[in-house]
């Protein structure tokens, strides 16, 4: 049993054992706090073979101290003050810095108050094996405990406490090492006060305490040359002592009143747009506005003025001479701000905050020089029209925690780091911080005050363990705002009463609900569908046959979703809100209830299904003779995968009708494609990969491979395009005001400037962007004979320069902007996938009205209503794309991890892949691994030469580990080999793909 004792604290000593102070609460009330303190004589000094102090726990400091320093031949211990730890942590962390350190409790607590991240580093330091640090609890030792005197600042009090403790240590050493008679007195080691504060040193010297500034001390050390590099610059400055909180400092300018904003935007002095942060650099963002061809650049925290990704903001543009070029350096918030403190960052004019500011302004300054040609309009945010804050998926930053004990019930202020790099860290107060570590959590932003560097938010709920599939998937859906709740009862009530027993009623008398009215009976047509493997929602089927006059009849049959989804019922509004089906690697979030999507609407083989058909008469040269649209009933004869259809087509032994019709379709598709290409359609590329899943249940990704494209893919694509174009013409003609169309605006030429420049300088190639046809032609010429993948790479990069296609209402834009740039078509819409896209449902309704099948629902006559729906659909469409991309990325990450582990266990080392350089930065390169479809960043810690004009970096030969001697030059489009690892970020628990260069230079050492 442990010994339980009562500590006595005589009333007579209350002066030094009791402490009274006033505290201002969060509500602004002033309260008096009284604390007691028990002073003791058994606090150990931590020096080996000390007669008086018997401390069992912890590693003791050597009795003689450190004997290697020039200035202190008799041995010494160093006793650094708070500022040394705050500013020179890198030095103290160095392996070469091995002096025994006495760490005072006063110092430790002050570090803790000033910066928790630094405190956590310091604690790790005290625990590390190869450091000799003894923590001396001076505030609890009766000789060294002091109290604050009248008129003394807390800082002065602490300095005095540190000096007192140093003096005590020196007397303590001399008392516990008395001269032994008959022996000469061995020289005693000294305890040296290490401080940068000149005034403090002066006082110490007066009291006979030996002291030293950091630089002077390091200069006298054995490894001075290496260690001097680690001294931080601020170490030479005179650090001001902490002021008591001097009121809250404004960190951001106030917003203008909203009336001024609106007036300013109207007058054209101010510009309105969506805030778009730079993922590579947290201090930079941009806003695209119509008034400038280039986006307006926002540089620095004050100019971004609390805008968060997606906010609708108003910006003021600076004078042209203040315009800047976007930064070419990768600036990671995590590394720059790692020592920032959750509790008081930005709350007070604290020193830590100033350091952050100084650091940031240094970064910004270094960016300032740039060629005038690259300059972009630059401005600042003066107001926010609409915040688009929502719940963000975050991780708790471990280092911002005061206590990581799960038993702790105290409220803590911590940082939540959003998964998305585009968002700032969010500060939140929570009682359950320790239990939230390693969890994905949902956090919403509540406000962002001018006095606070970070937005404040609150915890919503946890999504689950980091890296668990459920949590990752849900977080993905939340992150991209995909509505994924199961369909409600009201929605399911809109389904046919028969459920999956529903069939097309027999023609004639049995057709009670009049399904056959005006429907063509196409059940005898040889119709088949061609889809990717495992496709359940089959929304298109095709047929073709020779006509007696030598022409060909081709038909595209689309699932008749509008027969089931009637306007203005709960199912319709839910589908409109969802906008699109979202495909994730291992899941699908349906737009329509699965009874419709995968069964009643799906054009499955061998069952009668309702469809909406578009039937052309084409000449053998694929010229359209005429086209008609009709509602119909079909009975598909087969459901092929692309591969099956391809095999069937290529098999010369098969001569049945089905195969014939596929061949016919194919021959037409080839001609259609050729025509489209001739008209200037672009053949773009996007990095698409396919994830192999182990089995449906475990869904462990096995491997990643690039998607293969077959002739039959192109077959289906051509006919879908043909149908879409024909339908678009028809509905535009019938409803010129409200037709639902899709367009792809030509990209502004400036978007291509950089790519053109890179191509010219590195490969001597030119890109003609005057029209889509010209671009297509010049893209075809971008060939590197030695590198077949080069063309694809250029196409991917060109695709990124373009705008994205969008739905629009024909009445709301000018007729000459209807065109689809990528397809080189003057009009286009989406008609062919009504099961998974809501726009197609609208198009079906309009087409059905255009052919007189039904009357048009009144809502589709209203331009504003159509616009409103299409706005939502456009946004959902974009989000869905991003979500599926992110899902693929996550699985690629998992696959990489698995592959890495496998190859490690085989002893092959890490995963290595070939990659292309796609961007160069001042301190690194961006690479693209085409085999995996992922992009990565390789950063160099050491200096490299960066040539912004020629898009090259040069790694000096001496710096490269290989020691090959010569400089290594890497430019954009160079092929390199990278090593890919997946590592967990220490603070956020976010899985991060880390790439390091292997060839031509090893970048690990850099």
């Amino acid at each position, binding site marked *: 049993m442990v010994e339980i*004792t009562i500590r006595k*604290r005589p009333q007579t000593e209350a002066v030094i054992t009791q402490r009274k102070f006033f505290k201002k609460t969060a509500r602004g009330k002033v309260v008096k706090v009284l*604390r007691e303190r028990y002073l003791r004589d058994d606090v150990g000094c931590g020096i080996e073979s000390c007669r008086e102090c018997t401390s069992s726990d912890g590693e003791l400091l050597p009795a003689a101290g450190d004997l290697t320093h020039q200035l202190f031949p008799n041995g010494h211990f160093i006793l650094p003050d708070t500022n040394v730890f705050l500013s020179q942590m890198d030095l103290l962390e160095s392996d070469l810095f091995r002096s025994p350190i006495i760490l005072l409790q006063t110092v430790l607590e002050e570090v803790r108050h000033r910066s928790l991240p630094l405190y956590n580093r310091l*604690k790790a330091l005290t625990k590390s094996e190869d450091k000799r640090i003894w923590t001396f609890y001076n505030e*609890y030792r009766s000789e060294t405990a002091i109290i604050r005197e009248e008129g003394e600042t807390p800082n002065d009090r602490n300095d005095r406490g540190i000096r007192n403790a140093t003096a005590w240590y020196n007397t303590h050493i001399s008392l516990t090492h008395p001269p032994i008679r008959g022996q000469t007195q061995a020289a005693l080691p000294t305890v040296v006060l290490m401080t940068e504060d000149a005034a403090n040193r002066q006082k110490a010297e007066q009291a006979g305490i030996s002291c030293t500034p950091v630089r002077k001390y390091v200069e006298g050390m054995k490894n001075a040359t290496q260690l001097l590099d680690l001294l931080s610059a601020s170490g030479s400055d005179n650090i001001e002592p902490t002021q008591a909180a001097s009121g809250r400092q404004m960190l951001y300018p106030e917003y203008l009143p909203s009336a001024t904003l609106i007036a300013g935007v109207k007058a054209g002095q101010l510009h309105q747009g969506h805030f778009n942060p730079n993922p590579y650099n947290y201090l930079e963002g941009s806003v695209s506005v119509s008034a400038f061809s280039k986006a307006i650049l926002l540089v620095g925290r004050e100019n971004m003025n609390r805008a968060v990704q997606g906010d609708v903001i108003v910006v003021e543009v600076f004078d042209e001479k203040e315009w800047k070029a976007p930064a070419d350096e990768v600036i990671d918030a995590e590394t720059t701000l790692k020592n920032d403190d959750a509790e008081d960052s930005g709350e007070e004019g604290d020193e830590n905050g100033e350091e952050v500011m100084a650091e940031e302004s240094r970064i910004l300054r270094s960016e300032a020089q740039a060629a005038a040609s690259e300059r972009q309009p630059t401005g600042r945010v003066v107001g926010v029209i609409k915040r688009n804050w929502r719940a963000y998926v975050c991780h708790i930053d471990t280092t911002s925690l005061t*206590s990581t004990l799960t038993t702790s*019930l105290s409220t803590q202020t911590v940082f939540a780091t959003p998964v998305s790099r585009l968002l700032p860290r969010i500060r939140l107060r929570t009682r359950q911080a320790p239990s939230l570590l390693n969890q994905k959590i949902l956090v919403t932003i509540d406000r962002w005050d001018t006095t606070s560097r970070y937005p404040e938010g609150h915890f919503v709920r946890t999504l689950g363990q980091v890296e668990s599939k459920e949590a990752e998937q849900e977080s993905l859906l939340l992150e991209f705002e995909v509505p994924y709740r199961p369909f409600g009862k009201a929605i399911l009530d809109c389904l046919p009463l028969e459920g999956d027993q529903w069939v097309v009623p027999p023609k004639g008398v049995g057709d009670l609900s009049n399904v056959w009215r005006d429907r063509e009976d196409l059940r005898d047509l040889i119709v088949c569908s061609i889809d990717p493997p495992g496709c359940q929602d089959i929304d298109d089927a095709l047929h073709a046959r020779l006509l007696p006059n030598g022409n060909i009849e081709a038909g595209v049959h689309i699932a008749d979703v509008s027969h089931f989804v009637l306007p203005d019922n709960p199912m319709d509004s839910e589908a409109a809100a969802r906008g699109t089906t979202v495909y994730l690697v291992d899941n699908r979030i349906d737009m329509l209830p699965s009874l419709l999507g995968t069964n009643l609407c799906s054009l499955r083989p061998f069952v009668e299904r309702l469809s909406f058909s578009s039937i052309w008469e084409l000449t053998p040269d694929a010229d359209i003779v005429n086209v008609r649209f009709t509602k119909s009933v079909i009975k598909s004869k087969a459901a092929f995968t692309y591969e099956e259809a391809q095999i069937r087509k290529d098999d010369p032994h098969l001569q049945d009708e089905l195969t014939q019709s596929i061949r016919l379709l194919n021959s037409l598709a080839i001609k259609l494609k050729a025509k489209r290409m001739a008209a200037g359609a672009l053949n773009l590329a996007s990095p698409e990969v396919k994830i192999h899943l182990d089995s449906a249940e475990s869904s462990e990704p096995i491997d990643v491979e690039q998607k293969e494209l077959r002739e039959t893919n192109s077959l289906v694509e051509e006919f879908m395009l043909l149908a879409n174009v024909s339908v678009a013409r028809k509905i535009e003609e019938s409803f010129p005001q409200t037709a639902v169309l899709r367009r792809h605006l030509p990209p502004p030429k400036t978007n291509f400037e950089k790519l053109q420049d890179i191509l010219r300088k590195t490969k001597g190639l030119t890109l003609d962007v005057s029209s889509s046809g010209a671009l297509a032609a010049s893209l075809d010429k971008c060939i590197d004979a030695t590198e077949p993948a080069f063309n694809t790479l250029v196409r991917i990069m060109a695709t990124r320069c373009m705008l994205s296609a969008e739905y629009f209402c024909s009445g709301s834009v000018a007729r000459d902007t209807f065109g689809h740039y990528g397809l080189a078509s003057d009009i286009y819409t989406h008609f062919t996938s009504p099961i998974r896209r809501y726009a197609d449902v609208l198009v079906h309704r309009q087409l059905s009205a255009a052919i007189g099948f039904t009357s048009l629902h009144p809502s589709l006559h209203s331009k504003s209503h159509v616009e409103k729906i299409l706005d939502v659909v456009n946004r959902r469409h974009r989000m869905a794309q991003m979500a599926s991309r992110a899902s693929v990325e996550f699985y690629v990450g998992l696959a990489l991890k698995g592959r890495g582990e496998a190859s490690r266990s085989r002893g092959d080392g890490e995963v290595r892949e070939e990659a292309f350089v796609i961007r160069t930065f001042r301190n690194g390169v961006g690479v693209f691994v085409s085999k995996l479809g992922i992009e990565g960043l390789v950063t160099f810690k050491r200096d490299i030469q960066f040539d912004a004009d020629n898009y090259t970096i040069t790694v000096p030969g001496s710096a490269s580990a290989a020691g090959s001697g010569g400089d290594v030059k890497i430019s954009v489009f160079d092929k390199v080999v990278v090593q890919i690892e997946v590592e967990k970020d220490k603070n956020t628990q976010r899985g991060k793909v880390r790439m390091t260069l292997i060839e031509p230079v090893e970048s690990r050492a850099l």
Partner: protein
Amino acid sequence: MSSRIEILNAGGYRSDGRRQYELRTISIDLSPRGSGADGSATLSHGLTQVSVCVFGPREAKMRSQTFHDRANINVEIGIAAFSSSERRKRGRGDKRVLELSHTLKATFEPVIQTSLYPRSQIDIYIQVLQQDGGLLQACVNATTLALINAGIPLYDFVCAVTGGVHSTSPLLDLTLLEENDLPNVTVAVMPRTGKVALVTMETRLHVDRFEEIFRLAGEAGKVIHGEMKRAVKERTQDLVNAMQSVGKAAGTEVVDEY
């Protein structure tokens, strides 16, 4: 900045310089207080201070509240507005205060030999003067002392101590700071018999930790018992001394008179 204080630092010290199993300083004052209280005690654990006055056994003010076979115990608690750092007035009907007084009543009912005083009432008035954690513990200990001081027969002392757990390390006699942060349990023991008079907990505590803390708090109760007993003995000694001196003085007078 209160959240910035470490409950138990790496050196094994708590925020006030105590180690895990060290109790705060106790001071006990048994001198009479109040107007005509039969017994009183002022006790402080560190910066928590309560003063208890005991009246009775006496005739009940309301007959309806009496029992025919034993004495009724009535506990009333007043918490001074200035007792905590933030001024807060708690009225009579405050739920927290009612709960506390009920707990005390339930604790002492089996300890006081109430059957000796049928149809009477024992009033216990508690004034909380200063709060810094361990309020219940202080109330229990001070009430024990006041009852003893009043000469009311008890089966045993009741000694209470609060125990908490920081991660896996148990702590004893928590300050307010620690109480707010840690799961804690208050245990009152009767040291002579080792019986437990009260166990109460308002936070969640892991079941694996409970036994250890419960036992430690019981042990700590015995340590407090020593201190309380000494105070009672001292007080009694003082009284005896005073009585003897009075007796002597009176005796001489008698001799002189007669």
